[in-house]
């Protein structure tokens, strides 16, 4: 009872990377808490689900497997998850902050009247003392201290960019959080780990009315941009200045065998496509080399790239926050520096 749950998102029976990452993190948190790790999967043809996820340290897989449940639909999935939660009483449930997770988790939280923290960049277990000051009948003030043990610290950069907030759910259970793909590391716990499958009798949870939203067509394509796997990332910010200047980043990335990323400001300004966004609300990357071009480096952006092995910052602003975490700081204009980098790479790399 009171175990840690992860909702595992699948596409045609294949578990998404973000869910595997959450299982990896979930196993560690479950070990800290001394509880089991359980997964919920709702899809069709899930015969090899155990083979896919036991090795991440999963003890129990709750499975709702039916042709009607695939592909993902909000209402049936929400009803199934809510009923599993009511039955199993988990203390924590984690969702990927993906198109599916961000559609589903808020609806589950609302139905259960639970708190939900979006886009966490770190999850920890810790204690907390809640202090409330109350006024006695005789007019005296008294502080009531309520201790809580083993809460989920849901940590995320918050608004404004210069603060990190730690959010707690004191009373409502389960404690719920979403995490973006790439934030947690995917790590096999034990190749030979074995758990059990618990089929869930989903027909008791779902009625015909839950199928009112009809899927007419779907075109799912794997993104051609693979930032997570790129050894070198040339990323541009608002300081790049234009869509045309972004072409220089592509040229350098091509020469270095890398990929082009961007800050949110550059995406918002229309310099490049959304799939390239790095940071808290984009992709998290850990390349060997991160070349930040005209990126000031707000905390939301740094959250997505600060674990890069080597960081080069090219910026006209000597005081850009990103320079503080850079290994090399080139004070200069991107349009001037990038062509030189191409030139000298070609000259030196023979």
């Amino acid at each position: 009872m009171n175990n840690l749950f992860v909702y595992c998102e699948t596409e045609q029976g294949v578990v998404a990377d973000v869910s595997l990452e959450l299982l990896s993190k979930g196993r560690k948190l479950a070990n800290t808490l001394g509880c089991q790790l359980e997964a919920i999967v709702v899809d069709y043809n899930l015969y090899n689900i155990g083979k896919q996820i036991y090795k991440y340290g999963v003890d129990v897989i709750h499975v709702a497997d039916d042709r009607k449940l695939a592909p993902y639909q909000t209402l049936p999935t929400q009803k199934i998850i809510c009923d599993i939660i009511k039955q199993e009483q988990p203390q924590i449930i984690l969702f990927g902050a993906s198109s599916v997770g961000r559609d589903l988790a808020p609806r589950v939280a609302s139905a259960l009247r639970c708190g939900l923290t979006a886009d966490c960049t770190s999850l920890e277990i810790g204690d907390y003392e809640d202090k409330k000051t109350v006024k006695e009948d005789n007019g005296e003030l008294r502080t009531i201290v309520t201790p809580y043990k083993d809460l989920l610290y849901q940590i995320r950069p918050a608004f404004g960019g210069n603060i990190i907030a730690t959010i707690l759910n004191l009373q409502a259970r389960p404690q719920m959080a979403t995490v973006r793909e790439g934030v947690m590391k995917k790590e096999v716990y034990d190749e030979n780990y074995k758990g059990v499958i618990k089929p869930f009798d989903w027909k008791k949870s779902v009625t015909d009315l839950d199928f009112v939203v009809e899927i007419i067509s779907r075109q799912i394509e794997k993104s051609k941009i693979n930032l997570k796997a790129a050894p070198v990332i040339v990323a541009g910010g608002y300081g790049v200045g234009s869509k045309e200047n972004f072409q220089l980043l592509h040229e350098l990335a091509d020469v270095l065998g890398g990929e082009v990323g961007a800050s949110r400001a550059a995406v918002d300004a229309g310099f490049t496509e959304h799939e390239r966004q790095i940071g808290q609300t984009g992709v998290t990357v850990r390349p060997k080399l991160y070349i930040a071009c005209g990126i000031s480096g707000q905390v939301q952006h740094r959250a997505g790239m600060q674990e890069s092995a080597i960081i080069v910052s090219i910026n006209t602003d000597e005081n850009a926050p990103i320079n503080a975490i850079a290994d090399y700081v080139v004070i200069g204009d991107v349009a001037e520096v990038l062509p030189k980098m191409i030139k000298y790479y070609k000259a030196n790399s023979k």
Partner: protein
Amino acid sequence: MKKGFKIIVLAKQVPDTHNVGKDAMKEDGTMNRAALPAIINPEDLNALEQALRIKDQYPETQITVLTMGLPKAVEVLKEGLYRGVDKGILLTDRKLGGSDTLATSYAIAQAIKTVGDYDMVLCGRQAIDGDTAQVGPQAAEKLGIPQITYAEEIQEITESSITVKRRLESGVEVVKAPFPVLVTVHGSAAACRTRNAKFYMKNKNDESNIITWGAADINVEDEKVGKAGSPTTVKKIDAVVLQAKESKKLTSSDQDVDTLIKDLLSNHILG
């Protein structure tokens, strides 16, 4: 065929996150909205445009914009009226302050229930001050209606249903839902039109199309709103202190860029 639909657009006034000052946060970790320049949340404008397009096609459509916030959020309603919205509702009450997404969606759902008759609720996918994307789906759940998230285009609308193209991370999906339904609109949908001179003149000094409601008007239970109704607590706020690395400072001169590349190559950072 129907000549019009009843649409509620949810819009939020948000701090312009590109212009954040030092007074932005209060000590308890909630936002000090009063200290910030305010704009309409960008994706709510995308949602408003979708509503206006339906009204272009079905002129008897009635659009109500609903906003919850400080009294100055009335500006959001005005901007809606200047673009052809019929009515604005401002939900403002100190009791609602400090609400997290769950308490906010409850108050909004109560306000929608008070409006009563509607075919669809349209809102932005998420607001730029929190990026949670939670209030839309949570309001739909509280209303007991289906949701369509990340709408990019309304492809068809009939007397009883709407067909929407959704923008997903890894592709697109077209879905059809019966009314009533809540639709969250993605930033890749059509941009919002500008103010219309005729509507501007008509509404500039006229507040008769704006209604202000407090918590009592929408029948909320006090323990479900504000801090009391919010299951999340902010434990602490840390200022971010950058651990300055020992970084090598270079200029854009040929010699310095050459040094940089040679350094990266000799350390096998570049192959």
